[in-house]
């Protein structure tokens, strides 16, 4: 989220798209209702009339998987009717930037310029800007970048700043605005309705209502979730929403923002932590074999020429210093080469790991509170692949489907040679620790009771395994032991593993004054007050630069309650719900990201009633922590157009060269689609879709499987049920999984409420209960009736209170080319009465 939960109260229009927030993020209701009572309009765009839709003023149905057509039509409407936020778009976005003359989109083929047929991917060369001039970093003594050549800083060639060519009249045909306008002129409302399946009257009402937030001082909030991301163009959906919010001037303002309602308790933390193949903690990139194959290459490819990410060397060196401690020196590139480098091939993201298990490449597997046998797409393939593992370790509180894959109804344990270890974990209130919510708030969990019986916190399990592995390598040697034995692992208080010194590592500290391995009686720390103090010379250590400041009180370094994260003052001086004195929000306790954009070019807030930052003529009045350069060398910096200083251009991107599958969102059909053509371009599917050619995906076509299916969660259950199915009250409240069917389709298939229904496709077949409802209606797509069904996915064979079939046996293991996220939200099935 660029905003946070309490900020929804400040919105003038709220649009849920791909999010059923009332059901899956129930606390959102509290804050949306506050806006609603104040007179805000609430729109829900969803294939189903959900519990959220019932709350809303406007409900607009949509065929699963056609969101980009919807957004494209909305852009077109906004531009045609001149409803975009002029001052914002002109100054704070790249609308005026001139694109490379070779940039092109060909509607006849559906390809952007730069397609490499042989490689099966785009070269983004022609998606870049034209360059007006270049400047270099001033690394001379006293210069802005003198730090880059200081002692202890590894040698690297600083990037050159390229100043893009701009046309502030927005008339040049090569400027982003004109190209954008041209691109979406094809998205007229009739075409959109024909693709998406809603009626034109409803669509126009949605468009006019949401576009009304383009007026300066008005705020529109977009709330989205997995309904947007779980597509073969999910990342483009996310970009599409960002672009919408930029056009209407809704990013950075109170009540606006692009708000990903995230679904796991600490998924924000895990994303921040970069627990993903190619990611590094705190939104840096992990080492690889190409542009990040050495420390120098990393610094040269990753450091931005301008904006805040010019500081990346400080972040990375501090990360290495925390990782390897005294073993990291400037002479050995701070240990960079001990880190594993991710090869270009094969792919190691989640869906690919099951191919690699199937091929015998991956032999050992850790599942830390995650249950892929239930949650991964094409789950039948997943369990058959896992059966080829030598060993599996599952840390959880119940015997999940993954822990018991060998007990699945279609498996024969005698034929499975995998050794499976189940490690019982402590519950959330049986251990202390840090957790982040969707609004980037870092909060502290206090331990209330001891873990029951022999259960242990995951940090303790991990420590036990790590120390034992180290012991083996110390005693026996083995394949290069250095990456293991040079790693600093010293998070002990009074000799016991403890999360608090780990918190110091996350916050960052001066190496000279800090000992992580400590006693409770005399802890020695020199914790950093914030990331502004990080150095690239090895004198500071910090695992998570974005968190720096959250645990910075050296007077009580072992007491969470005395740290910024432990604050419990809910008085909210802002009056608009920033709650800046409650806990801590990264970065730098900033509650609304990009808050510079809440004020005009003169620094005057668009909405004087809701001030985040304001230029008073000689200084900034900062209600929220500034997300821009408000002062330099102790002096206030007057307002400028650099509202997005985490990008090198420091302007928001309506067009982006950074995506694998095109610089502008373009409508393509899902991997499995009920239609045979794409009225908007000559390509049916995204040419960049991942894994579609893998044999395991077993594509179905619409002649055999004519019904569009989507999966989703209900409020009474959660994910694979590992937690919710162990609570009898929740099983009672939602005793089984069901398929939601329109009355029309039910009549056609002879199905009645409560019947058992078989839902099937090439990948699997499941029997679930029927929920026949008025809340799903057949849509008219390309002039034909199109049925759509919805499936919940919380049950499977494991558990003692409630079990069922595995709905993810049906979902396709194909994914987005940027995020490698699976397409759970649109695929084909057929149904029959069981």
């Amino acid at each position, binding site marked *: 989220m660029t905003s946070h939960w*309490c900020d929804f109260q400040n919105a003038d229009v709220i649009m849920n798209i791909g999010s059923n927030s009332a059901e899956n993020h*129930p*606390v959102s209701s509290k804050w949306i209702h506050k806006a609603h009572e104040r007179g805000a309009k609430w729109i829900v765009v969803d294939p189903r009339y959900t519990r959220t839709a019932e709350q809303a003023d406007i409900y607009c149905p949509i065929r699963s998987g056609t969101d980009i057509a919807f957004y494209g039509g909305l852009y077109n409407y906004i531009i045609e009717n001149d409803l975009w936020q002029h001052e914002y778009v002109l100054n704070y976005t790249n609308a005026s930037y001139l694109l490379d003359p070779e940039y092109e989109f060909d509607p006849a083929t559906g390809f952007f310029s730069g397609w490499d047929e042989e490689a099966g991917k785009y070269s983004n060369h022609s998606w870049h800007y034209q360059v007006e001039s270049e400047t270099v970093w001033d690394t001379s003594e006293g210069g802005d970048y003198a730090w880059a050549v200081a002692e202890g800083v590894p040698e690297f060639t600083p990037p050159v700043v390229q100043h893009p060519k701009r046309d502030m009249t927005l008339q040049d045909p090569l400027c982003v605005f004109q190209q954008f306008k041209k691109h979406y002129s094809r998205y007229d409302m009739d075409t959109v309705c024909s693709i998406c399946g809603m009626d034109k009257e409803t669509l126009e009402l949605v468009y006019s209502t949401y576009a009304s937030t383009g007026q300066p001082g008005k705020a529109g909030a977009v709330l989205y979730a*997995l309904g947007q991301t779980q597509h073969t163009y999910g990342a483009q959906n996310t970009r599409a929403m960002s672009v919408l919010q930029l056009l209407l001037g809704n990013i950075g303002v109170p009540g606006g923002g692009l708000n990903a309602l995230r*679904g796991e308790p*600490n*998924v924000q*933390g895990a994303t921040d*932590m970069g627990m*993903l193949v190619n990611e590094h903690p705190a939104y840096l990139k992990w080492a690889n074999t190409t542009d990040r194959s050495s420390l120098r290459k990393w610094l040269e490819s990753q450091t931005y020429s301008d904006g805040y990410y010019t500081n990346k060397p400080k972040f990375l060196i501090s990360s290495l210093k925390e*990782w390897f401690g005294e073993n990291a020196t400037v002479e050995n590139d701070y240990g960079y080469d001990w880190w*594993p*480098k*991710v090869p270009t091939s094969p792919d190691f993201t*989640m869906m690919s*790991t099951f191919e*690699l298990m199937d091929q015998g490449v*991956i032999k050992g597997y*850790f*599942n*830390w509170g*995650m249950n892929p046998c239930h949650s991964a797409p094409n789950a039948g393939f997943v369990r058959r692949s896992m059966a080829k593992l*030598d060993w599996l370790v599952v840390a*959880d*509180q*119940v015997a999940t489907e993954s822990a018991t894959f060998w007990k699945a109804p279609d498996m024969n344990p005698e034929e499975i040679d*995998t050794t*499976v*270890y189940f490690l019982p974990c402590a519950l*959330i*209130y049986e251990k*202390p620790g*840090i*957790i*982040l*919510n969707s609004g980037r708030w870092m*909060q502290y*969990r*206090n*331990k209330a009771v001891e873990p029951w019986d*022999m*259960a242990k916190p*995951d940090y303790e399990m*991990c*420590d036990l395994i790590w120390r034992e592995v180290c012991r*083996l*390598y110390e005693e*026996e040697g*083995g394949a290069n032991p250095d*990456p293991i034995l040079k790693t600093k692992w010293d998070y002990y208080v009074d000799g016991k593993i403890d999360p608090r010194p*780990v918190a110091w*590592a*996350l916050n960052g500290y001066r190496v000279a004054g800090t000992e992580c391995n400590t006693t409770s009686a005399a802890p020695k720390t020199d914790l950093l007050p914030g990331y502004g103090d990080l150095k690239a010379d090895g004198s500071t250590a910090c695992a998570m630069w974005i968190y720096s400041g959250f645990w910075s009180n050296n007077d009580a370094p072992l007491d969470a309650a005395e740290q910024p994260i432990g604050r*419990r003052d809910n008085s909210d001086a802002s009056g608009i719900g920033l709650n800046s004195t*409650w806990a801590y929000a990264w970065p730098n306790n900033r509650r609304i990201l990009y808050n510079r954009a809440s004020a005009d070019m003169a620094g005057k807030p668009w909405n004087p009633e809701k001030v985040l930052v304001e230029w008073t003529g000689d200084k900034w009045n900062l209600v929220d922590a500034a997300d821009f350069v408000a002062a330099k060398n102790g002096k206030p910096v007057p307002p400028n157009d650099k509202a997005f200083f985490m990008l090198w251009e420091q302007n928001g991107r309506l067009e982006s060269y950074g995506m694998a599958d095109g610089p502008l969102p373009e409508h393509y059909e899902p991997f499995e689609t009920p239609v045979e053509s794409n009225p908007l371009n000559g390509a049916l599917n995204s040419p960049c879709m991942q894994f579609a050619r893998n044999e395991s995906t077993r594509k179905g076509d619409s002649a055999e499987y004519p019904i569009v299916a989507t999966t989703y969660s209900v409020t009474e259950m959660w994910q694979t049920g590992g*937690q919710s199915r*162990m*609570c*009898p009250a929740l099983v009672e409240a939602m005793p089984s999984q069901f398929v939601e069917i329109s009355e029309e389709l039910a009549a056609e298939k002879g199905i009645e409420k409560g019947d058992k229904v078989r839902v099937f496709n090439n990948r699997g077949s499941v029997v679930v209960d029927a929920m026949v409802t008025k809340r799903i209606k057949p849509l008219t797509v390309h002039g034909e009736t199109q049925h759509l069904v919805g499936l919940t996915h919380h049950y499977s064979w494991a558990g003692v209170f409630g079990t069922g079939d595995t709905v993810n046996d049906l979902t396709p293991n194909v994914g987005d080319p940027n995020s490698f996220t*699976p397409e759970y939200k649109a695929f084909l099935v057929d149904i029959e009465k069981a």
Partner: protein
Amino acid sequence: MDLTRRGFFKAAGATFAAGAAFQLASASPALAVEPDKNWKLVNTEEYTNICCYCAGGCGSLCSVREGELINLEGDPDHPINQGGLCPKGASMFQLRNIVDPETREVVKNPDRISRPMVRRPGASDWEEISWEDAIEEIARNVKDTRDATFVETDETGLTVNYTPAIASLGGSQQNSEEEYLILKAMRSLGVVAVDNQARV
């Protein structure tokens, strides 16, 4: 600073709820009565925690008496949920303890597994294993797999230090300190197949 009432009791995050006395600050004084021994929360300590379901970050209050969880509900001081909890959050008590329908007594949740177990090749059921043995075996497996598959340099001579043979999945359920330890352990072992719930 305007501390909330629970802010005063910050040692280890615990607050001591001496009967109902502390509750009265925000409740209707007209209804105040002396706590009696039948009062569910009599002599409980309160610990604040954060919900384990969606990423709303709702605050909860765990009421504990003699080391056992007595009640769990929304933290009324929390600025996001203001005391509320959805059905899943409201049932977090049951992750540990449930009410037996036969006896109507509070018992440990029978679905929870609280001891290490191992399933041997070809076996059709679990067997118990001690923590010590489980850790020893896991570490041995990790080392054997790593040693057999480790790639120190690739075909171009580049130092790569990875094993393609071990994968690690998960992290969004853990606290951040745990995420860092898991990530650090896995990466230092040479694991490149690190992924978590954020992928899906």
